[in-house]
């Protein structure tokens, strides 16, 4: 502590800016970690809280995926010996049609019995606030609003509210306002309650319920009840506590969460290099100070602990700053994630409150400090080894010794070989290593380590290669800048390494995005080729409102329409994972949107699937669930277990967790659900898309809510969602670039301080200000150029492995490798420009520095 106070504190005070820049690296790293995780947790928490609040006193819930089940199931559940009370529920998310209010979660309940499980405290504490409970039940336009929502929108009982229904926009009569309570604050307060049978009618739900909430008889255990209901209802139903829905939601977001984790880890890794850079430089800069301390009797151990202590303090301060900054940015990220989840997964939730988990904050703090300590470990060790005599000799410490270079090269070669074995082992090795993903990840990590080990050597080599070019460009300044880089590879390489890692991250995300776009566009061209798509909602992932099948012949009869295909998709739980079931008329699909099979014979695949003798699965599902062609799938459904073989594996991007395609007849048989999510409409040759579209709109005007999208519009919509998916990663890319720029600023600032004598001498012998300024600029641009070259090289390798991770562990999608040339071309001027901007202040500082002071430094 004494050393920290006497030695470190004055040093920090003297180099405030550098200290701030160093700390900023860890602030950003921790902030990204905290921001992303807090936002992610907030979204999960918001969903779980909505589930909890709606669940009320519910102990168990009976569900069958998104499809719901026949009403008769309710009587079976109510008759169970262990069930005290069981009530049906339908949840529907509808557009509130109020500016800035977004969606409204509509809870369809049976008002005659639901109060056994939920408290609908009415505003006056008196049921009379519902003008008349009988009128509420008798009139299908009755709606009750939460006080929060009613107050926000100045709606009182008796007012009307316009909502989109299966029959078009309808006016609903507000016949009650619920008092603010746990229930009403669900879904951010945007909650409304309707009679369940009215919801069925208004939202085209047929005679189905989404789920049953129940409470167990006194004296009977939840386990007893679960056992009884599972035995009675069969495997097509899930019987679990309300928290199970939160777990399913988490499972659905697994791919997204994995992306967040990878990005956060990278952000921290980059932050670590900033710290390493700063401490490595500090050690070299303070060699004389260390030498004096050693000469005065300080032990090596004390010197090591001095630097580790400094890094711990820096890490702690940076982490604390990161926590604050992270929490500040989390709200914006949460809103973005919420919108993304709603658009990509069709699951609506509102993360209005931040779930700042103490565990996440403590973890971030710990990781921040640990990262800082790890980053400073090598510089601290080097500091401890400083020879007091050599310490007072100037100039040699930035040089990389031949021995060290050799050692680095040997280590890199050995680790490179280990890495190659690790990366190949899961694919080729028999025995226990086969398919072991941990081994693959070790190999992946080693690739990065090898790159980092080699970065000083490669930086040096590249700097030497650059020297003739720089000299050719500016004989004096270019040579000086190149010499500076060559003579201090340590100083340069840490900054280059940070830049390299940032660019690696950028290349990975950009490459993944590009590959995804290309694959999705290919898939859309084959699978989504109808001229028009008719949907009951503006969102293609919103399955709240559905069409009756009777519309199909109506549509087919319209002039200009050649063929109509009915599509019903719904998320079900398959092998404990939420996956998408897509039920289509496969025979018709084979004639219009025939896809080649990744595995299997396409003719056989379509013939058998159309005959209800098999199922087609998407290749991502096959990868994630290790499914093989011909394997018999067992899919639990409300009306029995489907046992059919996989007839073919196809490319399909309908869902990140995978898709099972079946013939509509199979779906009808096992789900008793004939509703339709989307009509695919093909036009007769010569028919005009706008005219037919208008005919469809006219046909259902005032009767039914229909949204008709052209082929181009639907594809645009899907690409927009894809943009959204990668939008968040753009933020992370920006942060990564920012961290890298910080690294450059830090390096240059240190470089100036480090070379005050040299710069002072230059000025003394007649060096012009412009020459000095240009020297610094060129040095900065050279660091950026070296970073760009190494970053692109490592990025190219990293992208390959990231695509492997996506394929095996994230979404199962087989994305083709495509190096993101466009991004690379954009990064070159961006990073060079950023380096130049980063060099302005250090250059000015060097120019304006006092000559006397510079020489006094000696």
């Amino acid at each position, binding site marked *: 502590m004494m050393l920290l106070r006497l030695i470190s504190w004055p040093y920090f005070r003297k180099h405030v800016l550098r200290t701030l820049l160093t700390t900023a690296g860890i602030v950003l790293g921790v902030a990204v970690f905290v921001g992303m995780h807090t936002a992610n947790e907030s979204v999960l928490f918001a969903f779980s809280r909505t589930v909890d609040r709606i669940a009320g006193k519910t102990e168990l819930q009976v569900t069958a995926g998104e499809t719901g089940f026949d009403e008769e199931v309710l009587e079976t559940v109510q008759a169970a010996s262990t069930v005290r009370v069981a009530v049906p529920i339908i949840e529907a998310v509808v557009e509130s049609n109020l500016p800035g209010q977004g969606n409204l979660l509509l809870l369809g309940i049976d008002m005659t019995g639901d109060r056994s499980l939920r408290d609908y405290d009415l505003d006056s504490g008196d049921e*009379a606030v519902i003008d008349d409970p009988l009128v509420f039940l*008798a009139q299908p336009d009755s709606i009750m609003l939460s006080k929060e929502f009613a107050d926000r929108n100045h709606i009182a009982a008796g007012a009307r509210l316009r909502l989109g229904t299966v029959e078009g926009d309808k006016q609903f009569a507000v016949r009650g306002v619920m008092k603010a309570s746990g229930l009403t604050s669900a879904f951010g307060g945007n909650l409304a309650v309707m009679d369940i049978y009215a919801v069925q009618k208004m939202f085209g739900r047929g005679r189905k319920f989404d789920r049953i909430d129940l409470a167990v008889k006194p004296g009977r255990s939840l386990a007893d009840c679960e056992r009884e209901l599972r035995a009675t209802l069969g495997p097509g139903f899930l019987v679990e506590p309300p928290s199970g829905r939160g777990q399913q939601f988490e499972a659905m977001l697994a791919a997204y969460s994995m992306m967040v984790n990878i990005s956060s880890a990278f952000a921290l890794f980059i932050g670590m290099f900033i710290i390493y850079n700063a401490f490595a430089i500090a050690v070299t800069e303070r060699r004389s100070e260390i030498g004096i301390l050693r000469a005065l009797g300080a032990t090596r151990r004390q010197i090591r602990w001095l630097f580790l202590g400094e890094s711990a303090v820096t890490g702690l301060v940076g982490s604390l700053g990161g926590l604050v900054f992270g929490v500040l940015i989390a709200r914006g990220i949460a809103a973005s994630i919420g919108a993304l989840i709603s658009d990509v997964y069709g699951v609506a939730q509102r993360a209005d409150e931040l779930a700042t988990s103490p565990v996440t904050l403590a973890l971030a703090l710990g990781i921040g400090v640990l990262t800082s300590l790890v980053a400073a470990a090598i510089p601290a060790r080097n500091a401890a080894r400083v020879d007091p005599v050599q310490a007072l000799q100037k100039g040699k410490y930035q040089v990389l010794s031949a021995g060290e270079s050799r050692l680095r090269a040997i280590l890199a070669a050995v680790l490179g070989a280990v890495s190659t074995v690790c990366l190949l082992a899961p694919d080729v090795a028999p025995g226990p290593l086969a398919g072991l993903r941990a081994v693959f990840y070790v190999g992946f990590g080693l690739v990065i380590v090898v790159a980092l080990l080699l970065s000083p050597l490669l930086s040096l080599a590249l700097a030497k290669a650059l020297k003739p070019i720089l000299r050719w460009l500016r004989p004096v300044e270019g040579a000086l800048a190149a010499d500076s880089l060559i003579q201090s590879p340590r100083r340069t390489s840490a900054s280059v390494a940070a830049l390299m890692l940032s660019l690696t991250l950028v290349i990975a995300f950009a490459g993944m995005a590009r590959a995804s776009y290309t694959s999705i566009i290919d898939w859309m061209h084959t699978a989504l080729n109808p001229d028009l798509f008719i949907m009951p909602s503006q969102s293609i992932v919103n399955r709240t409102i559905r069409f009756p099948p009777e519309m199909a012949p109506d549509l087919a009869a319209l002039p200009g329409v050649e063929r109509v295909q009915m599509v019903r998709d719904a998320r079900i739980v398959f092998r404990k994972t939420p996956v998408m079931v897509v039920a289509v008329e496969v025979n018709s699909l084979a004639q219009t949107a025939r896809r080649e099979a990744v595995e299997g014979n396409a003719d056989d695949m379509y013939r058998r699937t159309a005959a209800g003798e098999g199922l087609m699965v998407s290749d991502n599902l096959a990868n994630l669930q290790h499914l093989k062609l011909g394997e018999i799938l067992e899919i639990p459904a409300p009306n029995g277990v489907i046992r059919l073989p996989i007839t073919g594996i196809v490319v399909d991007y309908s869902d990140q967790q995978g898709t099972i395609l079946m013939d509509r007849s199979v779906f009808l048989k096992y789900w008793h659900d004939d509703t339709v999510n989307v009509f695919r409409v093909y036009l007769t040759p010569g028919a005009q898309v706008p005219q037919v579209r208008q005919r469809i709109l006219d046909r259902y005007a005032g009767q039914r809510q229909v949204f008709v999208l052209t082929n181009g519009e639907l594809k645009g919509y899907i690409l927009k969602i894809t943009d959204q998916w990668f939008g968040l990663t753009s933020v992370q890319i920006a942060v990564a670039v920012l961290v890298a720029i910080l690294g450059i600023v830090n390096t240059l600032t240190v470089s100036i301080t480090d070379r005050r004598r040299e710069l002072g001498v230059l000025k003394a012998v007649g060096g012009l200000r412009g020459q000095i300024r240009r020297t610094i600029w060129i040095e900065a641009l050279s660091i950026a150029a070296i970073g760009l070259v190494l970053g692109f090289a490592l990025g190219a390798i990293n992208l390959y492995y990231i695509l492997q991770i996506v394929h095996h562990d994230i979404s199962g999608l087989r994305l083709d490798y495509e190096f993101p040339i466009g991004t690379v071309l954009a990064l070159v001027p961006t990073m060079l420009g950023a380096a130049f901007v980063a060099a302005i202040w250090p250059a000015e500082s060097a120019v304006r520095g006092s000559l006397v002071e510079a020489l006094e430094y000696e």
Partner: protein
Amino acid sequence: MSSETRLITKTRRTRRSRRPTNNLLSDALCVFVVLFAAQRYAVAHAGYAAGPDAREIVEEAQKRTDAKSQRYEGLLQVFDAKGKVSDKRWSFERLGAHGQSKSVLRFTAPAEVKGVAMLIVNHPDRASDQWMWTPALERDRRIALQDRSTRFFGTDFSFEDLEERDVNQYTYASLGEESVDGAGCWKIQSTPKEGRSSQYTRSIVWIRKDNYTLLRIENYVKDQVVRRLSYTDVQNVQGIWTARQLEMVDLRRNSRTRLTVDKLEYNVPFKDEDFTLQAIRRQ
């Protein structure tokens, strides 16, 4: 089997297994659904575990209200704690012996609830089956057994109060005699037997000594009176003493519901098929 098919089957079974009237509660007490149900309920609670006297009183009360069918038009007025009054009108028809009768209650006013109907099919050995028909939705819904303690459409009656109950499902105690509104009454307590589900722990019934009509029922949850039903304006209609006005007070909510009976007729010639789900959907 759909609810509807089950109902038809049940109705047939009920006809075949009709029990002698003297084993059941008095039909004559039941002049309209709530009155009918509440009185049935109360009389069922009255019974005679404490001795033959209580039983004889109940049996006699039951016998004096015996009728093959009945019809009336009712005015239902709900007075909330703030004094706000809401009115509804309904027509009520009932067919069959007590404990296994079928009733149809149809709202006629106000316009928003016109056509909403309830079908109640009573069983001597178990809880009744109840369905509600909402014409605007064109849907019927079954009122589940678990929901019987719920308030009947915002009134102070519960769905359970609409049921007819068998006397054998309760144990009884005579609590002596007491006057109600100047009329001498027997005071009898009934308690549901073990295994018999009810929201009420026990009930106390006052039966007039001169004509065996009910004058008051108090329903208890544990030791607290939660609902009190009073019968007034007792008149002789076609030889059956019948209260023309009932008032249920919910003592926890401090609200009350009054039912006024009009155009009351007994032994009206109804058909069995008028008391099915198809029938209430048709009208």
